[in-house]
């Protein structure tokens, strides 16, 4: 990493990486939210009759599955990369402030995103057979789980960032 930090100062590098991680997570959050709403309350009205909420969930949910898996993996890799920096420069100061619940919530997020990662193959399997009713509940529950985990991870990541702040 030292060769990289000769080109870009370390604090700027980690800030760029964190922003990129955040942007990928926003894309993931949007895709999962659309897909969850579409699977929970499918809409049958024509586009002209739809209000905001109906058009939000009137997406072709199966089209999102591959992108969601790719976004999850990219976000996971970026998060895993930042995690080492977090352990030294973010976690220790938060420990010194005795903000244990904040740390616990963050550690819990790390566990949840791993459970989400483990679920990706079966999630993709079920969505690639989206016309098969046999996999309907599998599609529903894996999608809902990934959505809840993604929202939790996003919010907790944001809270920890607010506690410590990037590049601080």
């Amino acid at each position, binding site marked *: *990493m030292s060769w990289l930090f000769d080109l870009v100062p370390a604090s700027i590098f980690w800030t760029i990486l964190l922003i990129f991680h955040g942007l990928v997570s926003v894309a993931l959050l949007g895709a999962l939210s659309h897909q969850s709403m579409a699977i929970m309350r499918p809409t049958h009205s024509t586009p002209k009759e739809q209000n905001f909420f109906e058009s939000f969930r009137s997406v072709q949910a199966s089209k999102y599955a591959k992108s969601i898996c790719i976004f999850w993996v990219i976000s996971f890799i970026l998060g*895993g990369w930042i*995690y*080492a*920096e977090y*352990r*030294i420069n973010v*976690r*220790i100061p938060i420990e010194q402030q005795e903000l*244990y*619940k904040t*740390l*616990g*919530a963050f*550690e*819990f997020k*790390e*566990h*949840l995103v*791993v*459970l989400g*990662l*483990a*679920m990706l*193959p*079966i999630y*993709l*399997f079920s969505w690639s057979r989206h016309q098969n009713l*046999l*996999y309907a*509940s*599998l599609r529903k*529950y*894996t999608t809902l*789980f990934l959505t809840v985990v993604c929202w939790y991870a996003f919010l907790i990541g944001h809270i920890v960032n607010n506690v410590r702040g990037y590049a601080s």
Partner: protein
Amino acid sequence: MTSAVDGKEMLTELRKRNFSVVFSASFSISYLLADMYKLPVFSFYPATSKITLGWSASTMDDGPAMYWYGWLLSSLLVALTLSWLATLLPEKFARKIPLSIAWTVPIALVPIFLYTLKFYWR
């Protein structure tokens, strides 16, 4: 001829299904066990970028140790092995693997993970 091809396709489909189902459940369980019983493949010291095999404690020289990467590798190895074994099961047994364990197992583990972090909830 067609039925033989159909049968082969169905078996391939069943194997893909079982691989994914077993992967999800076994990855989640082995990750929890790796965490609870200190079973990372390696420990990583981010302050010095040092890597040691297995579980090793934080030290004054190398700083805090991280196990998350090691737990991931432990559970990935276990999950890939078990998922591959699941694809080798005879059709009679392969059909008995319930689809629902793919999502019920990870969800059931969530409260256990919360409990393992009890140190922080004070």
